[in-house]
């Protein structure tokens, strides 16, 4: 069972055939659209019909419970036997574990992906520079709102576009990223020798005060609490809003949109900067987890050690350079060719049959890769887009990533799972993100926001904090 970002591949399609031939096994894959993946995952975990291998968020409460009850194979001590399955990055492996036990192969992702995508033509028109600090960001947002950057004579633009965020606190929302810029812990962090939740810090409040000033000044889309994430790019593309804070690959998505409009000058529309400095010049960057979900193996459908060995052997083969290239990039010579020995350049882009292979790889099969990503490659060939703006963006992306990694603020509690947090999730998980949005929209005051933080503690948060502290100590970090 795996995620899908488009139409499901035909099981008899060229790419699936190629993968099956490579592995010497028939594959039966359940593709589930990304938007409903978590729901479907919870339902599947509640059924008695689990697929052998599934893509799953290792800290999803239902998965944690199942894994701890023994529904999935504990792979911690088994991976050494398979040359290609050993974690390539210990930190990411630990992050994706449940209290140090590995229940799935993590899918590699670049650690630092947060960035701001900006309308370059607007900056140029108003004679502004790329923002470097949060104050610059504020000024740019203000100018985008008040100085008519699109030149239509109407007061109909705003600076920053924020959507209704589907995740909870510390789930890489624009809010989380901005709070980290202001120095708040990313999720959980140490304060006076104790690990505390990021929202219980003065920096958290300061960041939100700053954001509220932007909301009050009309610098953020007024429907930030209800705008669908699927429509995030629209205001940017249609010239209503000028900035997006999200993963750096979003630059590619918006470039695609402008490319459709104007195949010559699309590069003039999009600029990107990385994480920002605080007013005092200090810089804190928001890192991601280094992984996106894991491939977990069910004990129910993979019953014996012998069966497990078979599955792991297959996954080991898939984790070779050849296998990763197949699922990440497609079929060599059909939809891409290798350039300079280490990059994949797209070919035959106008051939409909080749386009199917390309889409199948991008929308679906890449989800099966554990060691390859399009933007930085991993052990797979890095993808080189054909247009120069794309190439420049990719180079910039890599440079920003390396630069911001030096100031990354890691989430101290990422590898641990508190039982209370799992059990009380339904009652406490929405308290903080809801309160934050209410505060920003002016529905509650700062004191009420603090009251909500207290309510979080009273509803079980105190217990969660104690458990997290114990678990982190036990993990010996």
């Amino acid at each position, binding site marked *: 069972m795996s995620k899908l970002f488009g139409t499901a591949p035909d099981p008899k399609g060229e790419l699936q055939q190629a993968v099956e031939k490579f592995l010497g096994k028939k594959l039966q894959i359940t593709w589930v659209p990304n938007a409903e993946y978590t*729901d479907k995952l919870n339902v599947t975990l*509640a059924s008695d019909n689990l697929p052998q291998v599934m893509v799953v968020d290792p800290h999803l*409460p*239902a998965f944690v419970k199942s894994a701890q009850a023994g529904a999935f194979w504990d792979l911690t001590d088994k991976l050494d036997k398979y040359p290609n399955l050993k974690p390539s990055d210990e930190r990411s492996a630990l992050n994706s574990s449940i209290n140090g036990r590995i229940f799935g192969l993590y899918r590699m992702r670049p650690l630092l992906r947060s960035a701001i995508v900006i309308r370059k033509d607007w900056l140029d028109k108003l004679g502004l520079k790329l923002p470097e600090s949060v104050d610059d960001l504020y000024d740019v947002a203000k100018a985008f709102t008040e100085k008519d950057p699109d030149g239509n004579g109407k007061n109909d633009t705003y600076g920053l576009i924020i959507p209704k965020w589907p995740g909870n606190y510390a789930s890489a929302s624009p809010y989380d990223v901005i709070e980290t810029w202001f120095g708040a812990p990313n999720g959980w962090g140490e304060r006076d020798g104790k690990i505390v939740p990021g929202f219980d810090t003065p920096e958290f409040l300061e960041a939100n005060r700053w954001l509220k000033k932007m909301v009050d000044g009309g610098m953020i889309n007024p*429907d930030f*609490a209800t705008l669908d994430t699927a429509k995030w790019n629209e205001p940017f593309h249609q010239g209503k809003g000028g900035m997006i804070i999200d993963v750096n690959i979003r630059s590619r998505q918006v470039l695609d949109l402008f490319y459709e409009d104007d195949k010559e000058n699309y590069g003039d529309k999009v600029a990107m900067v990385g994480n920002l400095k605080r007013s005092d010049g200090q810089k804190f960057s928001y890192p991601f987890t280094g992984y996106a979900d894991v491939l977990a193996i069910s004990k129910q459908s993979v019953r014996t050690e012998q069966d497990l060995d078979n599955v792991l052997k297959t996954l080991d083969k898939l984790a070779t350079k050849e296998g990763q290239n197949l699922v990440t990039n497609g079929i060599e010579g059909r939809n891409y060719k290798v350039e300079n020995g280490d990059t994949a350049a797209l070919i035959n882009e106008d051939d409909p049959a080749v386009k199917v292979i390309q889409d199948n790889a991008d929308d679906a099969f890449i989800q099966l890769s554990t060691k390859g990503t399009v933007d930085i490659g991993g052990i797979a060939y890095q993808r080189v887009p054909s247009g120069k703006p794309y190439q420049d963006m990719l180079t910039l992306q890599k440079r920003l990533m390396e630069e911001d990694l030096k100031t990354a603020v890691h989430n101290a509690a990422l590898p641990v799972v508190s039982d209370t947090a799992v059990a009380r999730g*339904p*009652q406490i998980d929405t308290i903080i*993100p809801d309160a934050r949005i209410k505060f920003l929209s002016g529905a509650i005051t700062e004191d009420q926001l603090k009251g909500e933080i207290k309510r979080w503690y009273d509803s079980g948060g105190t217990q969660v904090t104690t458990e997290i502290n114990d678990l982190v100590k036990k993990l010996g970090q």
Partner: protein
Amino acid sequence: MATHLAAPPGKAAPEESGRGAAKVPLRTAVGRYRWLYLMLVPGVAYFVIFKYLPMYGLTIAFQDFLPFLGYSGSPWVGLKHFEELFAGPDFGRLMFNTLLLALLHIVFVFPAPIVVALLLNEVRVSFLKRSVQSLIYIPHFLSWTIVASLTYVLFAADFGVLAGWMRDLLGDTSKIDYMAQEEWFRPLIILQQLWKQTGWGTIIYLAALAGVDPNLYEAARMDGAGRFRQLWHVTLPAIRPTVVVMAILASGNLLDSGFEQIWLMTTSLNRSVADVFDTYVYYAGITQGAISYSTAVGLFKGVAGVILIFGSNWLAKRLGQRGLF
């Protein structure tokens, strides 16, 4: 009404045959009405297979259920999940929101079809009457998703039609996001329900009204009753049984706030007024994976619904009305 229809002409009504069974031996009774009993079989089978057997699953409300361990392997925890629900921070809010929405529903949505049916009944031009009726029940066939999208298009802060009017007509540029305001949540929900359900609800009442004997009106007119008097003394008493049955049926759904509609209208900003049992069960069970806990919530809701239905039926009988059973 339902009981009238259930009794075939010339045969005994079911409730009477039930009483008679005390005197006539069961075998004879079954033998005599064997075709009727045979016709009952698919219905009973349906309820047993699809409604009663799945209730076995309710046991997981008393367990820390893990599918991997199954019903027999999961640990029993007694009433833990119920305690967590009743003592938890959400219960009061859920109860309040659910009941308030139910109350608003009873006050505004339930009588609406009656009023509209009475109004339509007074329309003498049959073409007009029928076309109005058809027009207002069409929204019933739209899904809640579409209703929610329509609401969004009308009320959204940025591009909403309504926001546009406010700007153009009143010069109001405050851009209120109605979809995100707590105080607008309940009015919007009730408006949606009125818009979507009123027309459909009138069908039953219009049918009941069509059954009123015209002689009664004539007699009332002879006695000098005006339009309003006729309405009060003839029409309303005539449809009272229908209203009572509809009310009892509705009472069982009192805690059913309608999952889809509310879920679609919930945002971070209005969650504190929008959370009701239905959406909470989905949120806790499907998106948070707390299966046992959400089953306990659902079970509580179901039990409360049964109590309400029996209670209102009892009340109806006490008030001299013909109850549902």
